[in-house]
């Protein structure tokens, strides 16, 4: 009912100018995609070519070969990254939504204190306190374990903050009704709160995954064994210092795509979910 009427002149101009802008925003992504498949000679062509002419998989090949010459095979980094990202994603969703449910829907002692701690810690940058963090991790004996990757990212005040906003918007009547019907706290949480906050959960999944996937801090500081480090660390050590050099540019190009692609996949997966849920469920 609204779509015919809304295709007005406003929308037509909007779509046109927006498309141009969006295309501009997408340029670097297109570049990453193309760059990764360029053969060595095209990488240094003059005048520079934006698009790839003779696509090749050579760059990926040399990236994998470069890694397998080292003591740790490339697949090990990949496995670590996938495992850490998967566990962290699941962990953050569960832990944060549990905390947000308690904070968003109930009143209890210390709630104000916890809330203000969370709000203050939103502006916390882990980079600034890496030394104390390292001391704590090694004090707990979490060096060179997957817990060392996982636990620090479970403390995600941003996720909790975002979820509190959404969960507190769920009408109290729904929860009261469920209580009347004899649902337990866990039942309310898993059957009502979680499904209703899917949009927020999708949003936090997107940025949590990105954070973990691109994170090099845990690998650098908490992991001393090379076998426990992640792909991001490997790629980062590969690219760093390439700004003014020629050698290794091809591997960097392939690695760039490799770091970008999973983010894109997760985003596409979850963003769809955000919109679908929003459209189908009539909840405010």
């Amino acid at each position: 009912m609204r779509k015919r009427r809304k295709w007005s002149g406003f929308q037509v101009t909007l779509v046109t100018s927006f498309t141009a802008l969006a295309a501009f925003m997408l340029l670097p992504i297109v570049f990453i995609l193309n760059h990764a498949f360029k053969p060595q000679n095209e990488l240094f062509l003059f005048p520079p070519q934006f698009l790839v002419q003779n696509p090749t998989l050579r760059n990926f090949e040399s990236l994998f070969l470069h890694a397998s010459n080292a003591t740790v095979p490339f697949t090990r980094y990949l496995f670590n990254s996938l495992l850490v990202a998967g566990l962290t994603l699941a962990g953050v969703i569960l832990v944060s939504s549990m905390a947000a449910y308690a904070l968003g829907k109930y009143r209890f002692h210390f709630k104000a204190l916890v809330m203000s701690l969370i709000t203050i810690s939103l502006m916390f940058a882990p980079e600034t306190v890496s030394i104390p963090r390292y001391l704590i991790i090694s004090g707990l004996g979490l060096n060179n374990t997957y817990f060392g990757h996982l636990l620090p990212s479970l403390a995600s005040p941003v996720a909790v903050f975002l979820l509190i906003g959404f969960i507190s918007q769920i009408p109290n009547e729904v929860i009261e009704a469920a209580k009347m019907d004899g649902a337990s706290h866990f039942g309310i949480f898993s059957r009502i709160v979680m499904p209703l906050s899917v949009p927020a959960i999708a949003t936090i999944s997107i940025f949590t995954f990105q954070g973990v996937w691109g994170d090099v801090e845990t690998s650098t500081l908490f992991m001393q064994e090379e076998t426990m480090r992640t792909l991001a660390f490997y790629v980062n050590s590969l690219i760093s210092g390439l700004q003014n050099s020629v050698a290794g540019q091809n591997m960097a190009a392939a690695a760039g795509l490799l770091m970008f692609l999973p983010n894109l996949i997760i985003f596409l997966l979850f963003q769809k979910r955000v919109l679908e849920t929003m459209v189908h469920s009539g909840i405010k």
Partner: protein
Amino acid sequence: MNTGLAPNIASSSSKASIRTKLSRFGKQLRKDLFCYLYLAPFFTCFMLFIIIPVFMAALLGFTSYDGFEKLHFIGFNNYIVLLTQDVIFLTKAIPNTFLFALLVGPGGYLLSFLFAWLIHQLPLKIRDYYTLAFYAPSMAGGVALSVVWIAAFSGDRVGYINRLFLKLGWIDNPVIWLQDPKYLLTIMIVVSLWMSFSVGFLAMLAGLQTVNRELYEAGRIDGITNRIQEVFYITLPSMKPQMLFSAVMQIVGTLKAGAISTQLTGLPITPSYSGHLIINHIDDYAFIRFELGYASAVSVVLLIISYFIMRFAYRLFGSKEEL
């Protein structure tokens, strides 16, 4: 500590009333036990990896510590040096951060809302593609994008920007963009603005979806005639939590930005400190000079600055009815 949420009975100061108060308190704790259980896993990690490290950093700020020797307690010396003698901090890091934050913070925030709102005006079917296009830069992340920056801002004729500007005749010779103090901060600001459609942008989009459609109908009946009015009287008030959230994220992102200069130039310290932000200053002292005590003092100052900006944001979004 604020425990005033529970209804307290105004009580006389006799012992009995203290005891009843305590037992009430215990009873409430038991009644709310599941709340604490739900909170526990998050809160444990939160304390361990955020709150305690911050306090440790605050303590380190009062010491002279290089990571190897014993630490010496030196009182406020770090702060005194920082605010009176650290020329690079005072003449480079502070003005750079201020300029950077002022342009990237509010600028990125307004642009995020503008584009989120415009995307929301589009037909549902094509919205996803535009969201993707705007979100892509921040999604690619630093590691992936450094490949792009290396190619785009390359100092020779092969660089895309040089090539384009030479062709247009704006410059006569290739410019070494990233090593030139004249351009570096500008480039950092442009790049950051362009990457600023991140979590906050997504939250705004999600917030726009939650605005009750009937409100627009009701607004039209109440005499709202154009879209600008709709935005100010209906959209913004309905999505306040998301607006506050993205404001906070924008502030945090801006103040802790610092990696961008390193990714652009490939140097831990930018040429003649032209792109030196407070975070770079911390990294410099912590991981290059290993003056951990001093670095902690700088990060405490940064935390305090961001705390006050945050207070300002809360006041801004809390008090006014429109925003």
